């Protein structure tokens, strides 16, 4: 599994890490029962604070996504839910592709489309946080 964190994005690194591990599971790059690197190993590899990795792992464990076994590491546990999520992502991709095609037909440039997406996503995130 290859992970890549973006420090300058508006999202805490532990959340980025959680999403990428989830994504790796959804795409099949990681399978049920796979072992993830230890906190220290992954922190050194990504050159981030060990607290960042520890927080991501403990949140994933809390969500039932990861099983932390004392002394022996972190193991992925994928339930059916994540598989159906993979299907949903597949459908979402197709929808977004169609939408982007339509926006291009309307004459919007890719850069403009990206900005609109990002602005809407961020706006939604702010509102959700408020609730």
């Amino acid at each position, binding site marked *: 599994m290859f992970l890549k964190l973006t*420090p*300058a994005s*508006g*999202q805490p690194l532990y959340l980025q890490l959680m999403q990428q591990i989830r994504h790796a599971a959804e795409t099949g790059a990681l399978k049920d029962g796979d072992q993830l690197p230890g906190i220290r190993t992954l922190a*050194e590899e990504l*050159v981030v604070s060990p607290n960042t990795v520890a927080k991501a792992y403990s949140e994933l464990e809390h969500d039932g996504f990861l099983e932390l076994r004392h002394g022996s590491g972190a193991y992925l546990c994928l339930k059916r839910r994540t598989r159906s999520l993979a299907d949903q992502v597949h459908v979402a991709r197709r929808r977004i592709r169609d939408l982007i095609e339509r926006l291009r037909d309307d004459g919007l440039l890719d850069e403009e489309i990206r900005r609109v997406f990002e*602005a809407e996503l961020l706006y939604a995130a*702010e509102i959700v946080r408020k609730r």
Partner: protein
Amino acid sequence: MNENVIVTQALSKSYRSTEAVRGLNLSVRRNRITAFLGRNGAGKSTTIKMLLGMIRPSAGSGTVLGKQITDAGENCELRKRVAYVAEDKPLYGYMTVEQTVRFVGSFYSDWRADIAKKLLQDYELPLRREVKLLSKGMRTKLALLLAFARRPDLLILDEPSEGLDPVGIEHLLQTLVAHSAEGVSIFFSSHQIAEVERVADQVCILDRGCLLVDASLDHLRQFYRRIDLVFSSLPPEREFRISGVERIQTRGRQMCIFASSNADAVIEHAREWNAVSVEVAPLGLREIFLETVKEN
């Protein structure tokens, strides 16, 4: 165990008419990597030297690992458990690298010869070369080695990456992470925002002797926003001076808002004033730093 490794109360230092540090209330948490940012002359090194008992505060007090910094006896205790790399990396010029490592190692009961040996190899330091003939980067590496080869409770580093090339910086950061994973608390000052942004848990920004920001990077990433607004007719600026809004700039019918929190309220507000365009963007640590210092 105490949650904080460093605590100061109204810590101040004046040199004649200059106030280098003004009423600093700092708390640095255990088992965290805390970055201490500020412009040149902001008071970072003065603060660090006060924490280590190297200069005496003009007012205020502080503890490091629970020991009073101004009490000579307690200060001696704390310095056994703190490893420190000074800004100017003072070393004996006439000693060779090898002699320096042996000499310094003999002072500490927590010295780890295995780590010293490994770092000597990793850093590719020439054992037989006299310290005065080392390049700036090599001096820095040697000074770091001397601190990393101990097993302190707290590492205090003043500009640890100074003079290092990108490979050296990467290596330094990895060593910091490894120490943190072993439970060492780390407090370091730096001008390298990009590196801070990766490894730090907590960020303190000092300017003109005052602490302006003390927050986790998670918090900064989540709440600091730049909001660009366009209106068909510009509303008065004061309408947007709500809590969390740090700065407003207007140009023509455009408004640019720098917010440390409450971005959602600003957006709602903008919609009420019929903004034609609303764009929200996260702020990187560099922008946060520049905006914060500019504001001051």
